[in-house]
């Protein structure tokens, strides 16, 4: 069996639901009224009482609180509900560890929910000082409370006040000193009204990431830009195409000059799958061969050169990607289980991984499920 029992599964893409006191426990008293808090809210269309986040007077009805007990898979929707309706592993780190034991998963990388996957909700804040405090408070919650519950079970994540470059650089160094291993960053920053990765705007931040050796994790959708689909297309089209956002963000990087200025930068494409990588690399290199002469792009190296140096992807269910692993690079592939979303295979993640990797040699399996993640994220096995 290629997935051996001594191999530890490290997932690089999972999620947590912030408990109601994340910000009220940490913000200064003068900001408690405007800061994020859970309130009871009557849904206008149905009259259903829900728990929702309120931040600066804005209601955020769709915050991941959409676990409705009794729902069947065919009834999945986006209704907000209450914490009591969620499985505790969503918001309680001890319960999460218990669920990981059940799932045969050693460690997880938990992205935010209410602030969105890279903290973009705070970029919308009217009070930018409060927004920065909120961002830092999430980091303190994650590093001091969530990940600290079981340091060998959680790969510590941090977010940035990315609308303020100077503050972001400071925050990178602050969270690195507190033990963060990766920083979540919008996959398409230009779609949030910020400079793209083609500009030199982000250089100080990217240099800080190199200095601290953390992974810049770009979760698909974190730039707030959905796949362009027909307005009347079934939601299935949207779900199917979400991974193409990772394709877009990766292509941006591969044709930018930015990575040549940051040779040690590590980029993780979170939840985007891997099967598309050989195609886009072939396409990028083909375009580079034919069109580089009149483009402001590097003339010496094809885009695939940058992929090999900087980028890794992850998969949860991607048989084609596993089959194409040598074209991607076995050392560029990591595994994810996406708990607690219903896409996850919990409590059978380990068994499903074993099935997906059945025809893969042991050493390659070990690389993809454990060793690559431990190396990228500087997350060694506990002594």
């Amino acid at each position, binding site marked *: 069996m290629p997935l051996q029992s001594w191999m530890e599964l490290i997932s690089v893409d999972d999620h947590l639901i912030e408990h109601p006191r994340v910000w009220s426990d940490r913000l200064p008293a003068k900001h408690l009224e405007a800061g994020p808090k859970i309130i009871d809210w009557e849904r206008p269309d149905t009259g259903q009482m829900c728990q929702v986040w309120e931040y600066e007077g804005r209601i955020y009805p769709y915050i991941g609180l959409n676990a409705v007990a009794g729902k069947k898979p065919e009834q999945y929707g986006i209704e907000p509900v209450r914490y009591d309706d969620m499985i505790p592993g969503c918001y309680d780190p001890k319960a999460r560890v218990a669920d990981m*034991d059940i799932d045969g998963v050693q460690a997880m990388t938990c992205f935010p929910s209410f602030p969105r996957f890279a903290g973009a909700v705070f970029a919308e804040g009217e009070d930018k000082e409060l927004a920065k405090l909120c961002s830092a408070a999430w980091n303190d919650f994650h590093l001091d409370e969530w990940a600290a519950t079981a340091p060998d079970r959680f790969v510590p994540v941090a977010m940035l006040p990315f609308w303020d470059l100077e503050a972001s650089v400071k925050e990178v160094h602050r969270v690195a000193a507190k033990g963060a291993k990766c920083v979540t960053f919008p996959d398409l920053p230009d779609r949030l009204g910020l400079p793209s990765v083609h500009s030199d705007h982000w250089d100080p931040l990217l240099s800080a990431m190199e200095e601290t050796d953390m992974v810049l994790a770009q979760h698909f959708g974190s730039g707030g830009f959905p796949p362009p689909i027909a307005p009347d297309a079934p939601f299935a089209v949207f779900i199917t195409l979400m991974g193409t956002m990772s394709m877009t963000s990766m292509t941006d990087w591969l044709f930018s000059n930015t990575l040549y200025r940051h040779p040690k930068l590590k980029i993780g494409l979170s939840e985007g799958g891997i099967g598309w990588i050989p195609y886009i690399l072939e396409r990028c290199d083909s375009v580079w061969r034919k069109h580089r002469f009149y483009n402001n792009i590097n003339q010496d190296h094809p885009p695939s050169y940058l992929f090999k140096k900087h980028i890794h992807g992850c998969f949860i269910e991607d048989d084609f990607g596993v089959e194409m692993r040598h074209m991607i690079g076995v050392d560029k592939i990591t595994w994810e289980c996406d708990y607690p979303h219903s896409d996850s295979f919990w409590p059978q993640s380990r068994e499903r991984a074993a099935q997906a990797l059945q025809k893969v040699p042991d050493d390659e399996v070990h690389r993809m499920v454990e060793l690559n993640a431990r190396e990228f994220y500087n997350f060694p096995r506990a002594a």
Partner: protein
Amino acid sequence: MDRIEQLPVSDWTDQDLLTKDEARGRLVDEIGRCRVRLDELKANLKTNEADESERALLARRLNAMESIVGEYDEYLDGK
């Protein structure tokens, strides 16, 4: 402050989380499978190191699953 209803835009609106009902159903199935496999390993007299490792992992899982499935029963009974 005037309350403004936010547009229903999230990073991924299909964030369906595992429900307690679905989680319980998955656990019951998995507990059954886990017990069968543990019995197979116990019945095999010629165990090697890999079998021992698998047995330890399964025992840990079984214990964890049995300890929480009851919580979901209580919740669902109260609904």
